[in-house]
């Protein structure tokens, strides 16, 4: 039965090496000898190299590419023995295209670190330009009222807000439940279970409520914004808008941004109320009635905690929506770019939320909240 893979014998000669190939030197069989052949040719650099093809059973463009790669590693043409006209013709084609590759790869690319730095500056510049475009779109809105479509705003608010309510409520309830239970177990040792109500309510109102709602918005809505706008970009719908004299920021970004900004306080409030209910369930199981828990929450939390959290949530919403829309608008070409934009929207949204939360912490501290 014929061999399925090619074989290679390397012989040292007076002034160089002889690579004797046998068997099928084609797509199916060349893989077995590719690396040994290229390595042997590289070792023979500076000396004569002979390809003995007298024993080959089959030869195609893959075999020709192998010989061309070996010659490239050898840094010089080899002497071909035992080849017919067809083999030589294929090898000539492979040599031509191998030469094209070397010429092209010789072009210098900028070093990776510089490229990354430049890319970072460009991204920062594009981000600033996008922010400017949003501000301009807001300022120009009185003259572009037709472009701001109320129906689009309602659709986005419905998707980002109403449709997210069940998820937000259930996550909030579970978060309150888990937080209260995990706190109550150790605090019971000190007889301080009652203070679990203070801990959970303050954490939810000031931090966890807006943060968790932002995480949901980033994961659920920002990615959808990026994918939707990104697909429009890939399908040249954005180009079509611009060519018709329509501003994509006013038409696509502002409705989403305003929708996210307005629904976020409601989502946050829903999450906080659900969390407090979850906490109350745990407190009840530890023997504290609803009245005591309510009094404890009212005594230890202030309207400032609630309002501060909701303001923060609105800002988170606007920033996350802006990042999602910007990711969509900066989508490249092809379906892969849409996926990358959606990922960038979620990652960007989460990182920005955490960073902004730190800024708010300092800001509120200075204001005495």
């Amino acid at each position, binding site marked *: 039965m014929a061999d399925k893979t090619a074989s290679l014998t390397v012989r040292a000669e007076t002034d160089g090496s002889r690579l004797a190939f046998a068997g099928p030197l084609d797509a199916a069989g060349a893989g077995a000898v590719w690396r040994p052949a290229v390595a042997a040719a590289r070792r023979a650099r500076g000396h004569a190299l002979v390809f003995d093809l007298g024993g080959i059973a089959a030869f195609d463009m893959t075999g*020709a590419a192998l010989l061309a790669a070996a010659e490239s590693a050898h840094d010089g043409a080899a002497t071909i023995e035992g080849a017919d006209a067809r083999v030589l013709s294929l090898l000539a*084609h492979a040599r031509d295209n191998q030469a094209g590759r070397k010429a092209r790869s010789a072009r210098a690319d900028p070093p990776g670190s510089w490229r990354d730095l430049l890319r970072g500056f460009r991204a920062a510049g594009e981000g600033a330009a996008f922010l400017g475009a949003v501000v301009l779109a807001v300022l120009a809105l009185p003259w572009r009222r037709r472009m701001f479509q109320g129906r689009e705003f309602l659709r986005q608010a419905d998707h980002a807000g109403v449709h997210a309510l069940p998820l937000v409520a259930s996550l909030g309830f579970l978060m309150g439940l888990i937080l209260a239970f995990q706190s109550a177990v150790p605090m019971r040792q000190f007889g301080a279970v009652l203070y679990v109500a203070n801990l959970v309510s303050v954490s939810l109102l000031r931090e966890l409520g807006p943060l968790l709602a932002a995480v949901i918005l980033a994961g659920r809505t920002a990615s959808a914004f990026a994918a939707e706008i990104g697909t429009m970009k890939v399908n040249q719908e954005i180009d079509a808008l611009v060519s018709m004299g329509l501003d994509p920021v006013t038409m696509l970004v502002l409705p989403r941004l305003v929708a996210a900004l307005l629904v976020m306080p409601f989502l946050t409030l829903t999450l906080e109320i659900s969390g407090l209910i979850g906490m109350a369930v745990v407190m009840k199981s530890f023997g504290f009635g609803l009245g005591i828990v309510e009094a404890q929450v009212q005594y230890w939390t202030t309207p400032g905690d609630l309002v501060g959290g909701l303001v923060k949530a609105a800002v988170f919403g606007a920033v996350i929506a802006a990042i999602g829309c910007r990711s969509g608008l900066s989508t490249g070409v092809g379906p892969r770019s849409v996926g990358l934009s959606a990922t960038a929207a979620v990652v960007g949204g989460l990182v920005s939320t955490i960073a902004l939360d730190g800024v708010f912490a300092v800001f509120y501290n200075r204001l005495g909240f």
Partner: protein
Amino acid sequence: MQQFGDRVIFRDVSFKVTEGEVFVILGGSGCGKSTVLRQLIGLQPPSAGSIEIAGVRVTGDDAWAARQQAQRRIGVTFQAGALFGSLTLLGNVMLPMEMFTDLPPEARAAVARVKLGLVGLTDAADQYPAEISGGMAKRAAIARATALDPPLLFLDEPSAGLDPVTSAGLDRLILDLRASLGATFVVVTHELASILAIADRCIMLDAHAFPDAGGVIAAGDPRRLRDESEDARVRAFFRREPLPAGVA
């Protein structure tokens, strides 16, 4: 034969392709030429009849293994290119090698670059399909189809949607590849200029070859068909003459 429900699309379509030739299946829209191609490449079983590739029957329930074997020995390009958008052109050409050969990664890349070089796309190897023109996508699809050096290549409407200059370039590429790879080409097209430029032989399908079905209305050298055929439909196709009244 191909039949959908009670409707017979075509029947009595019988032809042999000789090794090393460019064989064209031509005809107007809706005559079933793409269906014939789908049958040849194993995407659609014929309602009746059989297909042999390299002397081995590849149709019928008992020919599953032969069909699988044959599919490794053919290369196919589709009308829209059908390149994988998530891969670069190099990645597209490397994919069949990754699936069906033991070539190490650097070998796959080297072979793929040679294949892209053969179709004139050396400098576009790292671009994605969405970043290139329609003509380049067609050539990249041909490079992918030749990835495993198949002896038989099927091209579905390779010139569709291309300007005449690009289309002529693609015709030259097919002839160059035939010369360099020694492959056999089966091309489905209705582009007259391409047919006359590349075809050694052809068959012409027509949706009304029979009263109740489509089929072959002419076969042979397309230049001779153009000059010598007496069939009104063949003359209408090759000479751009209007069909006489009463001829569908």
